[in-house]
């Protein structure tokens, strides 16, 4: 319980030092600090870090990105439209309806139609359905 209160006080003191307004009153904060040696020690250390960071600045070096960026500006952006998907859906529905006719034996070529349609769609979209997406990460 005391640990949570200490953290709140420290957080508020640091925010106050950053020039922000905090919910806890100055009196409450000071009262806590007077009675809590651990917080007094930690706030001093945190102020030290604050001082070091305030004296520091961001490293910046000269770069020239224009040439690399400009090469990409001319290239058209490939947009995925809805039409190929619509055609694939219509073909798959037609296949399913055909499959429902009881007396017809479609044969191996017709049976493979959904795979062919899927393959054609991927080819058209220039997508590899077996590619592992390395950008997917688990949420923390």
């Amino acid at each position, binding site marked *: 319980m005391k640990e949570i209160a200490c953290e709140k006080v420290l957080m508020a003191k640091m925010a106050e030092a950053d020039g*922000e307004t905090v919910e806890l009153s100055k009196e409450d904060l000071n009262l806590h600090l007077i009675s809590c040696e651990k917080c007094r020690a930690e706030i001093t250390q945190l102020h030290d870090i604050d001082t*070091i960071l*305030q004296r*520091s600045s*961001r*490293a910046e070096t*000269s770069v020239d*990105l224009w040439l690399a*960026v400009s090469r990409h500006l001319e290239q058209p952006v490939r947009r995925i439209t809805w039409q190929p998907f619509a055609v694939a859906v219509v073909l798959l529905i037609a296949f399913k309806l055909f499959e429902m006719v009881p007396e017809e034996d479609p044969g191996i070529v017709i049976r493979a139609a959904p795979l062919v349609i899927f393959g054609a769609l991927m080819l058209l979209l220039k997508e590899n359905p077996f590619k592992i997406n390395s950008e997917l990460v688990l949420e923390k």
Partner: protein
Amino acid sequence: MDDQAAIERCKKGQNEAFRYIVERYQRQAVSHATAILGNREDALDAAQEGFIDAFRALKSFDEARPFYPWFYVLLRNRCYKMAARRRETESVDETVIVASNSAIGDEEMLALEEALLSLDREDREIVTLKYFDGLSYDELAERLEIPKGTVMSRLFHARRKLQATLER
């Protein structure tokens, strides 16, 4: 030319006008990306891709607003995407985040750089934006798209971690 004029010209198809934007913000973009990614090579790639993303999204940009905060959202998206695929710099022999200046000694600068690199990317990002760019809590909340309370607690915990690392 200013940002608004350059963006208007880009929207009219004059790609060359985007050069003004790239040249104006590239240093800032690379250093912000370096603070997130922890190394300059990836930061250069992320900044380059960020500018390309920005150019392609210019149609949705409201010219009444400042360019850089809008661009920063695209840049950090690029950085975090890239971060998921790449590893961080493991050793520090030169500083890429902290600049050398007369107010801070070389030893202190290297120690701070190492401590910053030991933080999570999100903690490092908020600390550098707060101290190096001087953003307020409200500005940090807007820039990072998080509530102000989260800014306060993230900054506090980041400073605590920095302090623990520097003490070692």
